[in-house]
């Protein structure tokens, strides 16, 4: 166990910084296990909790501020880029915009606990022209809450964490190989699932080319723009002849839609 702990103690702060930064910038490398181990080591007095928390907070704020500035520079377009990583890009954009529209900047307080929203909230705040001071305040508080939770978990469950570390140390060199292979498998499975579901979703969608052909042939479907209000304010374009109604209004306004024609929706 000593070798692994010594390694963690020697490079601990750099590992915590790198891991938190990479996760917050969007890499599929969870920082929670590192925070939990750091919390367990802190409980045994092998690591100082305050420097770990400070370094992790700096990494989180740095990555989030980069996203915030990209959001401010690129506007709502950056959301579509970030959401391309998700399983359903348009519902990802709509869902995050709706959440931000309802909760505003305080949503950054719990954004880190919501997978997906975590990476999208900072550029969204930038795209909505929020002030840097307000962003740093809410994102700082949210990051502090998230990082403290991870460290606290390790602190409370230090016996279990130490047990896992001991087993890994017993395996020596192979522990690194096993951890690497498991991490690679997790990324591979996620990538494969995403690819498969995207393929299914593509079959159920209409492509831009097919829609244009239908419109040119005189069989134009009814087009409905279901973007939310903030999207309309930032981007007033719409497809020719598109009806505008938000998702919440659809049930009340079904009568406006002809049942004999195909309906094409877009929400991003």
């Amino acid at each position, binding site marked *: 166990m000593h070798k692994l702990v010594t390694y963690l103690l020697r490079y601990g702060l750099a590992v915590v910084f790198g891991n938190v930064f990479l996760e917050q910038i969007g890499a599929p490398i969870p920082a929670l296990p590192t925070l939990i181990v750091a919390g367990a080591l802190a409980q045994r007095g092998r690591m100082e909790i305050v420097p770990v928390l400070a370094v992790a907070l700096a990494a989180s704020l740095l990555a989030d501020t980069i996203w915030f500035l990209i959001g401010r520079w690129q506007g709502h377009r950056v959301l579509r880029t970030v959401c391309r990583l998700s399983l359903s890009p348009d519902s990802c954009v709509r869902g995050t915009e709706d959440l931000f529209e309802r909760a505003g900047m305080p949503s950054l307080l719990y954004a880190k606990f919501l997978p997906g929203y975590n990476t999208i909230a900072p550029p969204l705040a930038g795209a909505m022209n929020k002030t840097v001071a307000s962003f740093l305040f809410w994102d700082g508080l949210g990051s502090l809450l998230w990082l403290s939770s991870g460290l606290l978990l390790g602190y409370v469950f230090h016996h279990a964490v130490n047990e896992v570390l001991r087993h890994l140390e017993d395996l020596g060199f192979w522990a690194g190989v096993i951890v690497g292979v498991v991490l690679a498998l997790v990324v591979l499975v996620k990538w494969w699932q995403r690819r498969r579901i995207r393929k299914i979703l593509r079959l159920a969608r209409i*492509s*831009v080319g097919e*829609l244009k052909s239908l419109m040119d042939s005189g069989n134009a479907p009814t087009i409905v723009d279901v973007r939310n209000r903030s999207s309309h*304010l930032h981007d*007033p374009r719409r497809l020719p002849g598109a009806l*505008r109604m938000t998702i919440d209004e659809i049930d009340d306004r079904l009568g406006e839609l002809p049942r004999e024609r195909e*309906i094409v929706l*877009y929400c991003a």
Partner: protein
Amino acid sequence: MDKGFTRVRPLEGGLDAWSDAGYYTEDETIVAIRRPGAG
């Protein structure tokens, strides 16, 4: 799910994909209307 409609499909790529393909989009002008006597 389709609530009695012939067929309902989302547009792949949304408004950006349509615009990026070089097709025409309309601009929606948002006008603030003030009621007579208000504020």
